[in-house]
């Protein structure tokens, strides 16, 4: 069966309206520029609703959604257990002068769940958690420098960006040190060069940067990073905002067999309710207490209630194992479809956070064309970013996805003939 090609008339009308009153219409990662809508006419711009594994755009097109709101949707959109917990708390109060006990319960649950956590500190976005972690590390060590792994993403504060980004000062990033991922020699060198000056090493549990195959840590990599940090009294920060709970319910550091000093969560923490958490070791608790770091909505109760329900359900369902199995099933289907048409599809990263790349064309134009054909037919992939599996994704969804991917490969093959060319 050939799938219908989506029409996006209303999306584009809405965009024309949006750009009159909103900078660039849709800013950031969900917009057509940063979101790499290539070509733009293959992608929907605005959604109208979501349920389970799907969202519908304003034109009524349904998508099997493999971006999951870029991560937050882990149980399925509108999960009944999480939404019920949130509803009950909303009736009692949300943003109140004094925080509710949900905050304590949520912190207790995280301390019981996350292997390296002795305490939890709450905020709203992943960027709040990573920025809090860096502040904490600098306050504890009285040092300035932070080591990053190239290809990182730790948020949008000035310290996370680069000196050539608009509005960022060279001074904002003057204490950033960048080393290649998986390069222990480089790590040793910077610790020798900046002895006694490095406040923290910050890294995602594995390299899930954009536009490139995702890379897992080499055997022993994190263990050596851990050893070097400990030896140099440097704080080891794991940014688990993206991967958190999709690898290991106890934290991605636990998955890779080491312990972070600070670990940052957001996205999957509350199935879409807006809360982030910074968890840490006991020795950093007093320092965290000393920071002047808070926000108007950081202690709101509804997201805490949602987070509690989300974590409890993820534990009940053995969530990472389930997502990895679903991701593997999907990966197997996509690889078989690619193989059928003679395409070299690379799938990297952990299956619950899989990254796709058609390796036949290093310019990525062929890959972008394939992704566009999938999206036009109702499978929401991106061409630049890792994807996300959620618990509500069914075998039928996977079957339909593979069917559409197959059809998209057929379109490319017809367009390009027997030889592999750029689209």
């Amino acid at each position, binding site marked *: 069966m050939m799938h219908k090609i989506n029409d996006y008339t209303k999306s584009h009308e809405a*965009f024309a309206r949006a750009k009159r009153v909103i*900078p660039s219409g849709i*800013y950031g990662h969900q917009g057509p520029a940063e979101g790499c809508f*290539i070509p*733009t006419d293959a992608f929907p711009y605005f959604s109208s609703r979501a349920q389970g594994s799907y969202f519908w755009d304003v034109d009524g097109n349904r998508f099997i959604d493999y971006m999951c709101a870029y991560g937050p949707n882990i149980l399925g959109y509108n999960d009944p257990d999480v939404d019920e917990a949130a509803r009950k708390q909303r009736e009692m109060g949300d943003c109140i002068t004094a925080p509710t006990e949900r905050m304590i319960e949520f912190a207790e649950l995280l301390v019981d769940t996350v292997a390296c956590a002795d305490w939890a500190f709450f905020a709203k976005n992943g960027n709040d958690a990573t920025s809090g972690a860096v502040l904490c590390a600098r306050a504890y060590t009285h040092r300035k420098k932070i080591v990053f792994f190239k290809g990182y993403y730790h948020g949008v504060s000035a310290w996370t960006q680069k000196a*050539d980004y608009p509005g960022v000062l060279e001074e904002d990033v003057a204490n950033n040190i960048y080393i290649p991922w998986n390069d222990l020699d480089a790590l040793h060198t910077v610790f020798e060069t900046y002895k006694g000056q490095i406040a923290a090493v910050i890294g995602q549990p594995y390299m899930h940067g954009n536009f490139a195959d995702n890379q897992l840590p080499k055997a022993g990599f994190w263990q050596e990073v851990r050893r070097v940090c400990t030896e140099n009294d440097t704080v080891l920060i794991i940014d688990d905002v993206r991967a958190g709970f999709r690898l290991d319910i106890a934290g991605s550091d636990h998955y890779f067999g080491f312990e972070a000093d600070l670990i940052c969560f957001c996205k999957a923490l509350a199935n879409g309710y807006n809360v982030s958490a910074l968890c840490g070791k006991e020795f950093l608790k007093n320092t965290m207490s000393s920071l002047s770091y808070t926000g108007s909505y950081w202690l709101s109760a509804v997201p805490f209630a949602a987070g509690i329900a989300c974590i409890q359900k993820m534990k009940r369902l053995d969530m990472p194992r389930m997502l990895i199995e679903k991701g593997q099933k999907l990966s197997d289907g996509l690889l078989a479809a690619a193989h059928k048409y003679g395409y070299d599809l690379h799938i990297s990263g952990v299956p619950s956070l899989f990254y796709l790349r058609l390796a036949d064309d*290093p*310019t990525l134009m062929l890959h972008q064309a394939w992704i566009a054909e999938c999206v036009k037919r109702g499978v929401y992939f991106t061409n*630049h970013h890792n994807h996300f599996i959620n618990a509500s994704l069914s075998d039928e969804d996977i079957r339909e996805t593979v069917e559409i991917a197959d059809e998209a490969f057929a379109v490319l093959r017809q367009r390009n003939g027997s030889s592999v060319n750029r689209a």
Partner: protein
Amino acid sequence: MTDTRTKAFLNLHAILGSLPMLCALDADASALLQAKNTDRTVGICVTNGPAGIFSFQGGACTYTECTPGTPSTLGTPSTLDRRACDILLSFPTPEKFNGMIDGTVTPIPKKGLTKAGFLTGPFTRLTDRLTAYLRPEKAALADPAFFRISTYLMFHVIAHAVCCIGNEDAIGQLSASYIPDGTLLLSAGSDISFAICFKDHKLTLSADPAKEHITSEMRFADLTTARALFDGAINAVSSVGDGIIQMRGMIPQVDNVNRILDRVALYLA
């Protein structure tokens, strides 16, 4: 913040370096070079800065970059052969050269004093004509022919300026350090295209885009779109959403060139 030395590269290679295109596109400019005693070779040499040779012959102009020790943004490195120059303008500092471009410094030829009439005559009229196209009166742009030449030249200056800034400016070099090897095609409709080649984080402007293996593209729907973007009349990000600017291929090339383009605006302001 802009860097004086980088500005000198941009002034010589990108702006004066557009004289060949001006002569090719504008019959009046070409005519200026068809008078008597206008077949001349002019060398410009800036200490601790760029160097290049302009050859004017039969109404046409060619430009060769020849800055020792620095990558040529045209990919044709050579040394400045003083003997080949009828006229040589030598500047002790980038500031002095930039002053000539701004009109605050009057150069005295180090060689070719007897031919200096070419500088004060045809060459000055040529650069005045270039300025008219690059800093056009709004009314002049209403003429389609003028609009076309002006936008071609502006596009060329910007593409070349990207190379200068990516190679010489400290922040531009940072952006360039994230650009993988390959070639970005910048085009406006079917009218015009430029290709910027990246090799080991050095940028060169291709002499012939059609011969390059293109690894990324940034396409403006037409010259009007390109003009509007260069003039700041439209926003690049929302224009991507509108589909009037399209990109594909190795997006880190597009993305980092966009960061350099921000600095082009700063240098050309």
